[in-house]
């Protein structure tokens, strides 16, 4: 029993490895993904944007780096696919220095699937340092915050951004975040300019953002790979997040079983120790 209580961590690692790898290989293993209300709210927000004059204009803020890429890149792809399939124009920016490479990859992939053109259907403004000050600047004067796009074309000359003066010109804003940017978007953007704000974040961040959902400062929330899979289900385009639900489901189960086993061993050891103390007394 003592052995089981102090099990070699490499054995746990092997079980986690098998819990991840076997479900990835077994394609028949399928679990139905049911979208939650918070994810549906983001979907409805983009549907509403699509019905506005001119087909809708949505700002994407890519605020994550490679460490959050497995969770947030499938989310970005699903949201962009939804926008491009509904003819929504997209403006993309980055507030994190290691985000542009991932943002560019997501934009070119999704735009390529729907034959969308850079400049007329979407623009990528690249990265600007300053976090909150960039948001304040964008709210005051979008073109002074981003005078040129990622490839050097003046913002004034791009069909998508020609008539954008401020944050209030966007029908919706989506922040894909792996840090504190959603709170900045709320404090310096949404509260002042009252645009619908949808947030996609890592799973560990999601619980922190629930107060903003209830206060109405955030329209919807997509949390982690599970949230991305729910969005894929909503747009009926299964991707890597849906595939990821297989290993994630099984690994969660493995983890729970280990926690339960650990507790059973703990109580048995405690009972035995109490018994032996009683016998000695």
């Amino acid at each position, binding site marked *: 029993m003592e052995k089981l209580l102090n099990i070699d961590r490499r054995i746990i690692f092997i079980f986690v490895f098998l819990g991840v790898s076997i479900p990835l290989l077994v394609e028949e293993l399928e*679990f139905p993904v049911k979208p939650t209300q918070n994810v549906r709210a983001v979907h409805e927000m983009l549907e509403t944007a699509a019905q506005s004059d001119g087909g809708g204009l949505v700002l994407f803020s890519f605020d994550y780096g490679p460490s959050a890429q497995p969770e947030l890149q499938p989310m970005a792809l699903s949201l962009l696919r939804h926008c491009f399939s509904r003819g929504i124009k997209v403006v993309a920016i980055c507030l994190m220095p290691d985000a542009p490479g991932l943002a560019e990859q997501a934009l070119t992939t999704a735009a390529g699937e729907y034959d969308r053109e850079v400049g007329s259907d979407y623009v990528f403004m690249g990265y600007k340092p300053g976090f909150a000050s960039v948001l304040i600047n964008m709210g005051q004067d979008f073109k002074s915050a981003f005078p040129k796009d990622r490839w050097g074309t003046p913002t004034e000359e791009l069909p998508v951004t020609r008539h954008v003066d401020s944050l209030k010109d966007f029908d919706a804003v989506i922040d894909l975040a792996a840090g504190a940017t959603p709170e900045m978007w709320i404090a310096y953007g949404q509260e002042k300019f009252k645009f619908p704000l949808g947030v996609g974040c890592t799973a560990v961040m999601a619980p922190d953002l629930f107060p903003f959902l209830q206060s109405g400062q955030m329209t919807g929330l997509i949390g982690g790979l599970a949230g991305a899979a729910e969005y894929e289900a909503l747009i009926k385009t299964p991707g890597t997040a849906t595939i990821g639900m297989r290993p994630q489901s099984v690994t969660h189960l493995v983890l729970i079983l280990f926690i339960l086993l*650990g507790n059973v061993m703990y109580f048995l050891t405690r009972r035995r120790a109490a018994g032996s103390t009683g016998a000695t007394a």
Partner: protein
Amino acid sequence: MIFLRRTAPLVLAFVVGILGIGVFYVPHETAQDLEKNLSLWLRIVFAFSFFLGLVSLMNLHWSRIQQRGGGWGYSLVVYVSFGIMFLFVVYNDGDGPFAPQAAAGGYQWMFLNVHVPCGATMFSILAFFIASAAYRTFRARSPEAAILLVSAVIVMLGRVPIGAFISDLIPTAAQWLMAVPNLAAKRGILLGVSLGVIATSLRIIFGIERAYLGGGEE
């Protein structure tokens, strides 16, 4: 000299602090123009902090290489990696350092094929350590710990499709846990932290908190 060391920074913090708060709430055109300019200046200051960070990082690793302390090889990797990426940025797929960064080329290739997989791998490894740590420490030692344990199991199952596969009640219970007890706790923490930030900001603006001037309390 005491004017430059103490009085001038205190006056500057007071004026910029009061202006920064004021222009955010005043909708007058002059205030809005000032806010725009302040945010632009802040961005320029922020950009300079990158150089400061870079110099600090390189100095730290240079001293480790010189002293040949434990793990100095990793410091060498920092220099080699930085050098390679810097060369790719300057070369910019043949366009030179002053053209917009090329969409393809060595830098992009290194980012997508080295940096991204390394970053994702580092984060993924956490799953293994969390599993091991959870097995050893997640014990129902007290009623509070037992509640935490049961909540964690419900949320872990409810956040993945297998939860709904077992029972529809699991995702509903997980959602309730997130939207009611979690929300209440998070809101309390958030309000506490925000009030703390406001209090500290006011202390700095009004010159009560002077630690940022350096040299300790005088």
